């Protein structure tokens, strides 16, 4: 059998002597670790986002379930014409932030009466926050809504809080 020329071994021998097995292993490990950390960061970021989103959902759900209030009464054209007052009792353990009050006619005016949506800017004074275990009257000026309350008609008053909880009463004008 014919042996290869000696210079070939020399060449191979030079290449192998350029990087030692230890260094090579170190490089491989470093690459592995970097890749691993990158992968972990990516996965952890995704998991964190998912869990945080879910935690927020649960927290909002908790606020919703603990948001308890009752609408005790409502008066129309009071204290002034086109004004409206809603009495709300917060029976929950935390403050309730009322988002909106929707008034709908349930009597003969149901076809012509455009439902009113009353919010914070419509308040005559104060704000829409009701402290725990207190009764508060929210007084709205609905004159800008171009709808009038008709004596004898029955209206549905739906109070919606920030968490989405709502309560409804029917009140005759």
């Amino acid at each position, binding site marked *: 059998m014919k042996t290869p020329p000696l210079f070939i071994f020399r060449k191979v021998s030079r290449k192998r002597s350029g990087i030692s097995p230890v260094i090579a292993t170190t490089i491989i490990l470093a690459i*592995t670790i970097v890749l691993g950390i990158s*992968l972990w960061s990516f*996965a*952890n970021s995704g998991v964190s986002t998912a869990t945080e989103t879910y935690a927020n959902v649960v927290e909002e759900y908790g606020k919703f379930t603990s948001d308890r209030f*009752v609408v005790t009464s409502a*008066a129309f054209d009071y204290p002034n014409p086109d004004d409206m007052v809603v009495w709300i*009792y917060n029976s929950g353990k935390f403050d309730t932030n009322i988002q909106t009050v929707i008034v709908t006619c349930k009597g003969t005016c149901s076809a012509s009466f455009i439902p009113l949506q009353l919010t914070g800017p419509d308040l005559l004074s104060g704000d829409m926050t009701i402290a725990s275990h207190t009764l508060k009257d929210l007084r709205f000026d609905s004159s800008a809504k171009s709808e009038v309350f008709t004596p004898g008609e029955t209206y549905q008053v739906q109070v919606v809080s920030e968490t989405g909880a709502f309560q409804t009463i029917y009140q*005759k004008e």
Partner: protein
Amino acid sequence: MDKKPNYSHRFASRRGVGAIIGGVILAGILLTTVLVYFISILNNEKTRTSLEIQAQQDDRQKATETFRVERDLLVSGGNIDIGIENNGPIPLIASQMLVYCELGCSNPASQPMQTTSLSKVLNPGDNDAESAGGGMLIADNNHRYRVDVISERGNIVSSITCTVKSDGTCSEDSTGGGPPPPCISCAVNEGIIQGTGSLVLDFKAFGAIYPDLGSRGGVPQKGWEVRVSSPYGSATGYPAYDIPAELNTVLVEKLRNFDSSGNNIVISRNTGLVVNVGKATSGQPDPNYICYADTTNKQFFAYDESNPARRVQVRATALDAAPDEGWVELYFCSTSPHTTSLNWHPDAKFNNINGIFMIARGTFLGSGSEYAQTIPYQAIQVGKSAAGNKPSLIACLYKTNSGTACPAVNANDDSTTTLIYNALRSNMEAGTVPGTPVGTTYVHVNTITTNPYHVTWVYPDGIFRELTPSGGATVTPPLQNIGIQIPRGNSNDTDGSTTDIGSYCTSQYVVGGKVYFTVMVEDNFDLNSYRNAYYMTWRMDCS
């Protein structure tokens, strides 16, 4: 042949080790990440579940909570009193009270004319009063009012309305108004309990107060007067089965209301004790009508059901209520309704036995419907007729055999240091009353009426024993005393102990840490089987 070096084998081994290490690390990272994710999800699920449970509990408690709002029959001073009763199984907090003017006011009917923050904690069965209206209610036949109460859980309960007549009463409470019709079956159903109606008496508390409450004696009584122990509380007065004759006397009874309608009953002025039944056709005793007792200021007033400060309200009590719950005392003192000036006094028109019926009348506070009940009663025995409106027999208890005359009957038991009407439990059990072991206490009688005398000790369980020898004790001048030993044991001598009188220091008999016994002194029968009787109270301090 030349041997070739195996390069491929060496390189393959190195690649294998690196892949295994890398794979393990990557797998660990992935598993850890997934684990962290699931743990986070589980924690959030746990939180969500606890929130749901809390919300369900709140909903369930709100649904379970029940209470009633009763309004008074009368608007006075621009106010109407309401009663808030927790008739549910869980405690509640009444948080808000709203008064509406439904009719006759310029403001909308749906606008609360008064809102009041409350903080009334009501345990199951509790009933608390509140004044509503803020002095603004108008009595003119045209205004109609309603009171709402909101609990802290958000339940709203309304009273029945009151259209106020000019006399302050509510038109709904008369015929043709809004309240529901009378519960016809209520009295019949509850009659099973006592045979006649919804008001149940505490017969063990029946007693009589003597003499002349208001001008001489007081409530509660001390010393000379007698307190009758009851398992259900403290009644004041003599045991009314045998009372002195012709002296102004107040009969006392306790009752509670088991009406199944759940309405409170306001007793009316025509409630009374009827004693004029029997064989005699003339000179029968007058009925004894209810009076209002101000136990704080020790006064009696004319009973007036239209005045909340001069009437008795018997609140509804559940059938399974505690034995000491819901009892109220009724005082009967006058021969005419709505007065205290015509004092009632017993006399012996029926051979010493006067049968008694209680005629109880009232109004249901919730519905305004009328209530009446006739309750057959125990009889009373009246002592001999007295002269000069004073008892013929006056007795008292002394520490020594001194022969000192008893002071006036309205004197307190501590008016003289030689008088003795109470002792510590330990001293009674040890027999060191009034001082020395197995000491002797002396019953002094001011005027010797008829020998022999009998001294009887009445235990709070109703059992009695005679403290004088068989056949009685003879009282002779000048000392006019009867020596007795205050009992050391309870009423049961067969239990092997004769020093266990402290066994009455239990909740069944104790009133304010004290137990009351009765000492009864009677003289001998005359030819008509009449005799004098005199009663005193002995108090044992349990600690």
